[in-house]
């Protein structure tokens, strides 16, 4: 079965090959394992980019295939980051506290250690006790489980309520934005138990691995991100290749008709929503240890809109399109906003890219939507000579296969 799946989708093999070569190349150019051509911070940027690609893959599955424009997936990305961040911060602080207390004459009790940790972590928001949501923070396996379970549960409840009431289209998008904003505002509060707007920091330091330099850690996380992206790509490609993919594309195009075929449209939407939320959360759990810090600003509604923009520019409805879009736009974005892009002096006005990047991104988004609805991925069709047959007239529907005016008259 797997063999026929891979044989039928050569693009998956090509993608995995390119990803493997890229990973090898970056490793050989890294400071830790190669010729030190790429700086550690750039490797972190690349690793983070791979995580964003994984989130874009999830976005493409739910938007490009199932037609649900969710503008809240980056919230789950951030929640995944928070979940793994809680353990990182707890375990790291525990090390520091234990080291500090070891100088005392009496050995420290468990109580003293716990109070020390709580004081270290929550002193900044004026609390000295660990909030109840930190009960699992001492255990890596439990906290990793939460990366999947917590976003999954939120998605199940939210999705069940929204899809059961048959909220669709732009209303659903607005609802997901509202949910994202509500989550962000909640986390901004100091008493939400996640250090308010300070967020969690120092996540780049892995507990127990103090001797390993960031040069090595950055490559390890890069490998983990590449592996996650590869596995995620395989999973999503497998899902969309079969009858399930057929059904969700059918839901995107005409959900009433799918109901009359006997498929529970709401069940499928809930399934896809929850699955993509979990993928996004896993991507976030890999992203934030590389970023080193997470705060509620990461849940800002705009982040989820960016995700949609990446997928649109890359080409929705094809998986490599989403990956290309996310990689290209997010890397360009960090180049432009990082102040590395040379300013353009027009004499009377200097175009400073830090300020103008968003304008450029907005214009490209509009242009792509208007003139290249297939996005960058559409270029591959051109290369293969797969142009659409000339069917005369304008399309009557929004989709590729829609009836053309002239055909309708026949």
């Amino acid at each position, binding site marked *: *079965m797997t063999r026929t799946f891979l044989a039928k989708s050569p693009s998956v093999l090509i993608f995995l090959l390119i990803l493997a070569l890229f990973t090898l190349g970056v490793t050989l150019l890294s400071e830790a394992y190669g010729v030190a051509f790429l700086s550690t911070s750039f490797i972190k940027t690349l690793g983070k980019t791979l995580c964003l690609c994984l989130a874009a893959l999830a976005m493409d599955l739910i938007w490009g295939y199932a037609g649900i424009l969710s503008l809240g997936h980056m919230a789950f990305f951030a929640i995944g980051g928070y979940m793994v961040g809680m353990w990182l911060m707890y375990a790291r602080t525990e090390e520091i506290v234990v080291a500090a207390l070891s100088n005392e004459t009496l050995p420290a009790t468990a109580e003293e250690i716990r109070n020390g940790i709580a004081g270290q972590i929550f002193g900044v928001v004026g609390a000295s006790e660990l909030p109840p949501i930190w009960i699992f923070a001492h255990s890596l396996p439990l906290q990793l489980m939460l990366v999947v379970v917590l976003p999954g549960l939120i998605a199940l409840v939210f999705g069940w309520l929204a899809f059961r009431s048959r909220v669709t289209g732009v209303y659903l998008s607005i609802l997901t934005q509202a949910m994202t904003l509500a989550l962000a505002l909640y986390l901004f509060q100091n008493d939400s138990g996640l250090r308010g707007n300070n967020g969690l920091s120092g996540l780049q330091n892995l507990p127990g691995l103090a001797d390993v330099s960031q040069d090595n850690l950055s490559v390890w996380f890069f490998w983990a991100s590449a592996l996650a992206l590869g596995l995620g790509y395989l999973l999503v490609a497998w*899902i969309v290749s*079969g*009858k*399930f993919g*057929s*059904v969700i*594309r*059918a839901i995107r*195009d*005409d959900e*009433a*008709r799918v*109901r*009359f*075929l*006997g*498929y*529970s*449209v709401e*069940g*499928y939407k809930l*399934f896809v929503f929850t699955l993509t939320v979990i993928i996004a959360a896993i991507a976030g759990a890999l992203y934030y240890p590389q970023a080193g810090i997470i705060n509620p600003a990461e849940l800002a509604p705009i982040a989820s809109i960016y995700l949609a923009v990446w997928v649109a520019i890359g080409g929705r409805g094809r998986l490599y399109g989403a990956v290309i879009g996310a990689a290209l736009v997010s890397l360009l974005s960090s180049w432009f906003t990082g102040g590395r892009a040379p300013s353009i002096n027009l004499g009377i006005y200097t175009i400073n890219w830090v300020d103008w990047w968003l304008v450029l991104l907005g214009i490209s988004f509009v242009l792509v939507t208007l003139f290249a609805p297939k996005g960058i991925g559409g270029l591959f069709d051109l290369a293969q000579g797969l142009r659409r*047959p000339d*069917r005369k007239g304008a399309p009557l*529907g929004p*989709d*590729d*296969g*829609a*009836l053309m005016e002239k*055909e*309708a008259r*026949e």
Partner: protein
Amino acid sequence: MSALLEVSGVSVSFDGFRAINNLSFSIGPAELRAIIGPNGAGKTTFMDIVTGKTKPDAGKVLWGETSVSLLSMSEAQIARTGVGRKFQRPTVFEDQSVTENLIMALKANRSPWAVLGWRAKAADLDRVRALAEEVGLADALPRKAGELSHGQKQWLEIGMLLAQEPRLLLVDEPAAGMTLAEREHTTRLLVDLAKTRAVVVVEHDMEFVRRLNCRVTVLHEGSVLAEGSLDHVTANPEVIDVYLGRG
């Protein structure tokens, strides 16, 4: 004879307008029935009620040997119990191939988990090929449904209905937009199908209804005006008055 579908005393109004008014209707497990009536008589609303798209304000819709109520079921559940519906305008999934369209319609477990792991077996592909053969689309299997002509889309939709293996088929104006030869083919197919299952045909075209040679129900202002053979109902003065007289 026990009925497969029994609709009794059903009423529904939209914004005060009574689209269906105390309608009663029943059909046996292997019967062909034509429903005729002028525009606004409630033909489409009737189908919407049976398929679960519209919930009636009053009345009962009972299904099968055990007389379960269809009113508490969702559209998808009703479709799974065995009600298939063909729309007037052909609605197929244009972005997908004829094969994919047919595979989606094939009778199988519809739950997301089951569908996720589903892969076509030789028997399924044979069934798809046989269905395509039956509706004359054997050569078009790999083509996108959107590329088909209007008539071919009608046939694809009929093929999808057959793949669902429904016990009751609701067909809305099947002959619309078909050539004479295609109409004959459709007639034969519907008469054939009605030997093993219930088929309800909503049609405007009297010539087509005559060819079906079956019991006819005349709807008018949301309730049944007359029922019987075509000759019987066309002789009814009321029917002539509201429907035929205007033609």
